[in-house]
């Protein structure tokens, strides 16, 4: 899965991925659970199934999503709430 994310740095790979995401996942030998997580953009599942954040972020960037968006997903907040929490000094109590 991390190899798949890494490949998305290339424009051609992003086009191939967009054209048929499931086929692209098969090409990288992903498990069904990993494929489901990617197709459904289940970011927490991607982490749980072995994804590293710096690699997962390649897919998020492709989708136009920020690390604040992902931070919100992981901590149960909207992107706006997460940004506000960071601006207020970050989450110091976790």
């Amino acid at each position, binding site marked *: 899965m*991390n*190899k798949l*994310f*890494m490949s*998305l*740095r290339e424009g051609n790979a992003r086009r191939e991925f967009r054209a048929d995401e499931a086929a692209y996942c098969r090409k990288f030998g992903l498990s069904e659970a990993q494929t489901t997580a990617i197709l459904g953009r289940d970011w927490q599942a991607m*982490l749980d199934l072995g994804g*590293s*954040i*710096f*690699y*997962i*972020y*390649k897919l998020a*960037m*492709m989708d136009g999503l*920020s*690390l*604040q968006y*992902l*931070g919100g997903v*992981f*901590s149960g907040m909207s992107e706006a709430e*997460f940004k506000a*929490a*960071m*601006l207020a*000094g*970050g*989450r*110091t109590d*976790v």
Partner: protein
Amino acid sequence: MSEVIWGLATSHVPSIGAAMDRGMTADPVWEPLFEGYQPAREWLAEHTPDIAILVYNDHANAVDLDIVPTFAIGTAERYRVADEGFGRRSVPDVVGDPEFSFHILQQLMDEGFDLTVFSELDVDHGFTVPLSVWTPEPGEAWPCPVIPIMVNVIRYPQPTAARCYALGKALGRAIAGYDGARTVGILGTGGMSHQLAGARSGFINPTFDHMFLEAIEKDPEKLAALSREEYIRQAGSEGIELIMWLVMRGALNAEVRKVHSAYHVPASNTAAGLALFDNRTAQPT
């Protein structure tokens, strides 16, 4: 004989570079961060070394999980700015110094640090953002040649803080024994507290960060004694990048003079810190 004249520790958050590239440094969200850099930038502009060494980590751009060197050095004549997926930052490529790189490599090898060698290396935001913190407007070229030393902080297990500090000490001896440069600057990058993934994402620990900023100057041994797990617990899973500050600090003298330090929350999801140390033994009056 070469002398390390300064050590600069700084966060390397990509959005710091993006804020500069997009002309957003006067934006209310960013202005305090860049204001905090100003005294360090002014001092650094007057103290350009012959060569700099920059300790950093790659973020899934030059290396992936196929092969992860724990410590590595670049020996190239030039290092291209990496395309992290959406084009290269419009900053100059980095000019290296193969002869100095090889000297460091051999000296460190003889001291028992078996570094991986990059003959070719594209440098990502972990490298170019600290250069921008140092030199906001480089024009056609960065102020001097820069040699990359890469540390794995992503793939578990990362090297210990103690090992990073010992590497820095050996690096300091290697620099001192080199005849090809008069003055050297060294940068340790990353940190401060932050966590990007999982339930603790958004974690910031200002108490730890302020302790670290104080101890990196006066008591680095205390920081070198902290375990990997303690860094992750206290500074977050990405806050362990702070071990790279210890490589820089190890290369400096026991006694240094703090020129400036700054701390700001947040740069995106991260506590951004900066510390600049004057390492000259003959201090100008």
